Structures are given as structure tokens and as C-alpha cells.
């Protein structure tokens, strides 16, 4: 009586990813915010200077699209995982999932795929806006490099999101996500150049995750502040830090509810 003892993992992953996509899409607080905010910020901070060039000839508009792109993808990760996990815990969805045959890793991959899809959407919307409204022009290969690097480098923010999601409840998690992520972005020079920031912040910037994350995109449009290898090392270190924190918070939760 053994046709198939378990359901195929691929089918589970597909179904689970579709479910997460629908959930995120139907919560406008998430779907609208993560696509609209980067464009909005770019309009305020970037459009007036979009056609300018730096003294070394680089496009200011492209640099700012890189900045707000980094802001956007990072926020997708922090919010999707932070608020998502906090909600799952509050509504006991985590318990419901645990009594099904769904392996937790499949759920994790589905969440990551979902976040990547939204991150991609957020980036494409911003780039399309920058090109059409802002008149910022770059070779397609440059845009593609930005997209690939920002999606691939977003892992530390998944860790940060998880930590927030496991530590805070559904009402505090969004506030905490903002409280942590926005200052990090500001202080990293995503909204205005690092050189224009207050002195003590300027000293701090080179140690922040968002700073090195944005470097991935800035260097794609010609900035020479930091090599990609160095950025990746910093991001790997932050990934380790945040995932460790997330794991501690997760274990604590696990002990409380599932042991």
C-alpha cells in the first residue's frame, strides 16, 4: 500500500511559494509600501539631481537609483521576514504548519523565493521609473548587475528580519523594523551622500551593513569606494551575526512552544 509515502517536494515548494506570494500581495501595507516607497524617496531626493553628473563623470541619477534600490530590496527582506514571522507566531500559523508534512526548510525556501520576487519587483519598478520619468540611462548590463548583486547580497537582511520577527509581536514588529532599518539606511548614505551626514554618523557609516550592501550597487554604476570582495566580506560577517541572533531568538521561541 505504498504508492508514494510523501508528497513531492517540488509540488510543496511551488504551492507554498504561491501561498506566500498571495499573502504578501494581499497585504497592501507590505506590497504597496515596498514598491512605492523607493520610488517616492527617489522622487523626493533623487529626481531634482537625476540629470547631474559627479565630477568624475558618473551619473548622479544612476547612483541614487542604486541607493534607493538597495534601500528597497533590504526593506523587502526585513519586512517580509520580520512582520511575516511575527504574524505567523501570533496567529499560531506556525503550529498549524508543524502538524502538516511540510518540511520547515521548504517553507523557508518558499519565503525566500517570495521575498526575492518582491525584491525584484521593487527594483524593476524603481529602475523603470528612473529611466522613464528621471531620464536616467545606463546600459542594460549595468541595471542587470545592480539587480543581481542586490538580490544576492540581501541575505543579512533576511537574518535581521527573522530576528525581529522572533523577538517582537505583530504589533511591535513593524515599528521595530522601521526603527532599525530606516536609521541604518540613512546613516549608510542611502538617502544623502555620506559626506553630508553629521560627523558622528559619518564615522559610523563604514561599519553598517546597509553601507556595504549599497556599495554592491554603487560600484556597479562606477563608484570606486570599495571593491565587491570587501563588500561581500562585510555582508557575510553581518549575515553570520544576524543569523546567530535569529537562531538564538528562534531557539528561545522553540523551547517555549514546541518542546
Amino acid at each position: 500500500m505504498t504508492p508514494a509515502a510523501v508528497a513531492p517536494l517540488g509540488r510543496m515548494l511551488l504551492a507554498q511559494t504561491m501561498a506566500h506570494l498571495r499573502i504578501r500581495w494581499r497585504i497592501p501595507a507590505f506590497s504597496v509600501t515596498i514598491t512605492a516607497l523607493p520610488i517616492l524617496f527617489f522622487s523626493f531626493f533623487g529626481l531634482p539631481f537625476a540629470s547631474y553628473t559627479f565630477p568624475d563623470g558618473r551619473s548622479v541619477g544612476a547612483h541614487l537609483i542604486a541607493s534607493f534600490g538597495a534601500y528597497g530590496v533590504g526593506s523587502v527582506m526585513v519586512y517580509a521576514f520580520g512582520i511575516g514571522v511575527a504574524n505567523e507566531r501570533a496567529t499560531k500559523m506556525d503550529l498549524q504548519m508543524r502538524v502538516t508534512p511540510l518540511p520547515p526548510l521548504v517553507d523557508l525556501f518558499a519565503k525566500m523565493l517570495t521575498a526575492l520576487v518582491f525584491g525584484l519587483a521593487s527594483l524593476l519598478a524603481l529602475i523603470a521609473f528612473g529611466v522613464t520619468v528621471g531620464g536616467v540611462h545606463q546600459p542594460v548590463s549595468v541595471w542587470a548587475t545592480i539587480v543581481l548583486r542586490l538580490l544576492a547580497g540581501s541575505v543579512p537582511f533576511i537574518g535581521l528580519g527573522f530576528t525581529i520577527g522572533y523577538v517582537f509581536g505583530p504589533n511591535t514588529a513593524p515599528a521595530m523594523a522601521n526603527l532599525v532599518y530606516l536609521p541604518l539606511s540613512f546613516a549608510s548614505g542611502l538617502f544623502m551622500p555620506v559626506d553630508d551626514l553629521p560627523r558622528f554618523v559619518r564615522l559610523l557609516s563604514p561599519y553598517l551593513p546597509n553601507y556595504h550592501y549599497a556599495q554592491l550597487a554603487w560600484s556597479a554604476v562606477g563608484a570606486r569606494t570599495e571593491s565587491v570582495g570587501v563588500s561581500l566580506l562585510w555582508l557575510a560577517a553581518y549575515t553570520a551575526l544576524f543569523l546567530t541572533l535569529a537562531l538564538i531568538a528562534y531557539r528561545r521561541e522553540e523551547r517555549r512552544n514546541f518542546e
Partner: protein
Amino acid sequence: MAGDPENSSSVPGVPGRLRTSGGMGRPSRPPIPSVVEMIAARKRFGDVEALKGVDLTIRAGEVVAMLGPNGAGKTTSISLMLGVRKPTSGEVRLFGLDPNDRRARSRCGVMLQEAGVPSVLTVRELVDLFRAYYPAPIPARDAIAIAGLEEKANSTAGTLSGGERKRLYFALAICGDPEALFLDEPSVGLDVEARRAMLATVRALAARGKTILLTTHYLEEADQLAERIVVIDRGVVIADTTPRDIKASVPSKRISFTAEPPLAEAIFKDLPVTILELSSRRVRLLSNEPERVLQTLFERGLTMRDLEVSGADLEEAFVSLTSGREPRR
């Protein structure tokens, strides 16, 4: 071995004959495979011992009701069976496997009291999602129909009423066509009509050979559905038998009255009663033979006012099943 395998048959006034089916014996080669096996399972939460050594075997095809007051350990037992929680000591197996084994999980449908689903997904989307978790699910349409949710198929979970939500969870439990169903308080929160439908559905599934474990507060419900009742109280299985034996062993009537003058406990000497309350003048008793008790009390010269004889509810009945054991918390 840790635990006290004898305590399950040491119910006061309920002799060992109460163990008729399943239960303790673990034959080396069981003729029917076991779905659930709990061996001296203990579970401690901080200072509280929620399960104090439970031995329980549920075999394929059995319909078992787990009965007990709130906090008795029913939900903890189910959590252990499904691997949601780990036993502090002892062993729990599901289909002979670790309860967290995906092969075991794939054979179980589960409806938990406190679990939740994403409120923005529709009934149909959720059923389809859960179907994908199982190797051989039934069509979504069928699962939705069995749960009686056709009209709500396109409604999001967040817009459902309490009863509809319960039926949604039932649909999610059965959509994978599992061999075993774990239903934690399946009828709580349902109106009379929905409850009857739910019970009929569970009976139909049982008739098709599904193994069913359900927990309930209601003796009636257990009686209607199950061929075996496991009574659990304060973390211990205190009876494991047929509904008939349980009903015979539990006092079915409650007698209450006001006594003039106040009574001493001695007046109930040799009478088949369980005293629930004997404070100031109000007296509450449980008994299977209210007529004889009252007659004897009158013969002993008792005067009473406000006499009332009514059916005992389960909570009260448990007090008698568990009287003589250490006092409740």
C-alpha cells in the same frame, strides 16, 4: 520503568475490568498495526507535570475519544503524538516512526484547537495548499463539500465565522485523505446543526476505516462517536474502556438541596454518593441511585428545601471518578 502502569486501573469504585480494549498490553507482534504508541510518556512544563506517565496504544481503525476536564493533558497528549512537543521522558511513536518523520505526518490529518491560518487566503486556496502537502489528496471540491463550505469556497479565512473557521480546519485535516485523523475538540464552537453534521461526517470517515482520535468535553459526543474512551485527568489515564462502561461507572445524577439544620457528613454513611459541596446549608451530591439516596436521607430524618435532581455534567462526573486521588490543584 518510570511511571506507574497500574494507576490506570486503580480508579476508585472502578475496578480493573474497565480496561477492555487497547491499552496496556503490547504484544510483541501486534495483529493490527499501531497508529499511536505512547510508552510511559511524561511531559513537564517548568514546575508543572502535565503528563505523568501515559501509556496508550491506538490501533489502525480504532475510533478513540479522549475525555477529560480542561488542563487534564488532552492537548499535551496530542502534541506529543504529533511531535509538536517532545516528551520529557518515555517514548512516543506515530505509525511506528518518530512523530516528526514526514512519512508518519503524511498519514495524519490534524485539526488543532488553537492553530491558525493566513487570514487573507481563501478557503479554496488553503485547501489546495494543504493538498499539496500530502501524497494522495482528495479533490479540493470534495474536501470543501464534506466540510459543508461550498458557499464559502471563495471567501478569505479572515471573513469566516467561528463555526465556518472550524469547518475550514476540518477540511484542511481531511483534504490529504489521511489514514488517521486527530481532532482536538472538533465540535466546540459549532451550532447544533453544524455539530450534528460534523459528527455524522466523522462517523462516516470512521466507517471507511479511518483511525480517529478526538478529544472532547462531552461524554455524549464521545459516546456517539467512539468505541473506546480514554479518560485523562491531571496527566494520568484513569480509565480506558467502552463508552458503556464509562457511563455505568460515572454517577449520572446530581442531587442538590438546602438542609435544615446544617448537616454532618455522617448522614451520608453507606450511601452511594460523591459529595461535591457540603458547606453552610447547601448540599450537592452525585449519585447513580438518586431515589435510594433520597429515600434513605428522609428515613434518617433529614428535612430539605429546594430539592433538585438533574443530569450530572462531565466536569462533575470527573470529580467522582477522581475522588480519593490527591486533591485538585
